[in-house]
């Protein structure tokens, strides 16, 4: 089935999945914990969703504070081996105590990973992070040198990201992927870019497109048209069928007939359902991409576990999103109002992926 329309097979599949997913919501088991350990960054990307800067007002969260929450609130209530901790930023590698943080969470039985722009991921740094228990890493790699450097605002960023990915591939057992933010400038060159990634030996690739948050909201040149978005979906589907590189579209929104064909899984937003984050200012939220005013508590005021168990209502039960264009939408039951990160400060939907598939 092509495009927006759901075929019968997929409709039945989604109906079954809907009820299974309800169980996941009811269990709300913590499986992924983001620690936004810094908002400092060594780049100033045009599409940054965090709107982070080289010099930020917000200081890094001390490692001791994060470990205190982990020891007092989380570890007693979870099986650490089932929880993945993701260090996120900003750019995490600006923190000099990242290895110490990694060692500490590994010692407690957690797996950990990080997202990086690769600028500071030298061979030596990677080795010390692996020694500290690093298990998974994602590197932003947005396109050929001109496109990547333009979007990242740095003449060396492409070479550094490429070198970082080459270093990562020297490790067996280290999960990784290259993440490409597809902009109109790259859409025509996706085939060429795919061949380049394959020639670099990269096996895991993730694509996302811009959503209007942070700095990206102000730059129209970064947003795909409906035709471009539709082309992107076709490209991902055909690449997956080809099987030469493992490609996934990020968990951005419901995709109608493309469901289960451009991602390994049906669409779902697990923010606040199985995913929590501790923001740099101590706020407790779902994913770090969700806007600040959806914070459910703060580690300096509240008990994390109490917040996780008893709040997050708007993340787990999303009937409140059934307003505006979602009110009469026929696929709301499968989409549940899209990703939480696509909701603005007033709860209105900023971007509908399903609508883009017209």
């Amino acid at each position, binding site marked *: 089935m092509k495009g927006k329309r759901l075929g019968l097979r997929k409709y039945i599949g989604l109906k079954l999945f809907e*009820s299974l997913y309800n169980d996941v919501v009811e269990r709300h088991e913590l499986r992924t914990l983001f620690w936004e350990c810094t908002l400092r960054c060594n780049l100033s990307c045009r599409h940054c969703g965090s709107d982070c800067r080289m010099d930020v007002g917000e200081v890094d969260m001390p490692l001791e504070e994060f470990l205190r929450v982990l020891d007092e609130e989380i570890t007693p209530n979870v099986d650490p081996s089932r929880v993945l901790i993701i260090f996120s930023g900003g750019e995490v590698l600006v923190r000099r105590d990242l290895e110490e943080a990694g060692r500490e969470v590994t010692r407690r039985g957690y797996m950990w990973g990080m997202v990086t722009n690769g600028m500071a991921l030298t061979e030596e740094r990677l080795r010390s992070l692996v020694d500290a228990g690093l298990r998974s890493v994602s590197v932003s790699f947005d396109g050929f040198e001109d496109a990547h450097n333009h979007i990242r605002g740095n003449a060396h960023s492409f070479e550094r990201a490429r070198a970082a990915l080459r270093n990562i591939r020297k490790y067996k057992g*280290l999960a990784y992927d290259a993440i490409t933010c597809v902009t109109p400038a790259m859409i025509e060159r996706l085939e060429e870019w795919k061949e380049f990634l394959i020639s670099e030996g990269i096996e895991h690739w993730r694509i996302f497109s811009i959503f209007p948050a942070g700095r990206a909201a102000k730059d129209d040149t970064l947003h795909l048209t409906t035709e471009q978005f539709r082309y992107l979906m076709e490209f991902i589907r055909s690449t997956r069928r080809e099987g030469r590189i493992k490609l996934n579209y990020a968990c951005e929104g419901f995709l109608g007939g493309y469901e289960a064909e451009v991602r390994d899984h049906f669409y779902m937003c697990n923010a606040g359902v199985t995913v929590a984050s501790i923001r740099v200012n101590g706020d407790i939220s779902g994913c770090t991409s969700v806007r600040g005013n959806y914070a459910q508590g703060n580690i300096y005021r509240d008990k994390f576990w109490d917040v996780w168990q008893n709040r997050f209502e708007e993340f787990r039960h999303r009937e409140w999103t059934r307003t505006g264009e979602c009110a009469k939408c026929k696929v709301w039951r499968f989409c549940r109002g899209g990703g939480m990160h696509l909701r603005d400060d007033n709860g209105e939907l900023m971007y509908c992926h399903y609508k883009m598939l017209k």
Partner: protein
Amino acid sequence: MNKRVKVAILGLLGLSTAACCGTKKANKSQDAEPQPIETDGVDPRIQLMYGVPFPDGEVVRPIEEESATADKGGVPFPDGAVVKPITEEEAEKRIEEMHKEKEQAQAESQE
């Protein structure tokens, strides 16, 4: 309809991977044996927007060290297998086999 039936129907529809996936538990330490795959049914580890791929449970180590032979002063890279003591009988048998291999190699080189 219970969970297993739903998962089975999804499988019949060719959508099982979209609805469920295997996840792996972390090793408690780097020395531990990899844990078996734990199938969670419908709690897939989805690729989060700002997330990372879910680790596959393997111990991370450099490929070059894994395949490299020992240098002069070093030792070979361990293969991750659990080291167990062997009996005296087994030890003698292995030594005998080594001698035989050595003799055979010498004989072949003389030919």
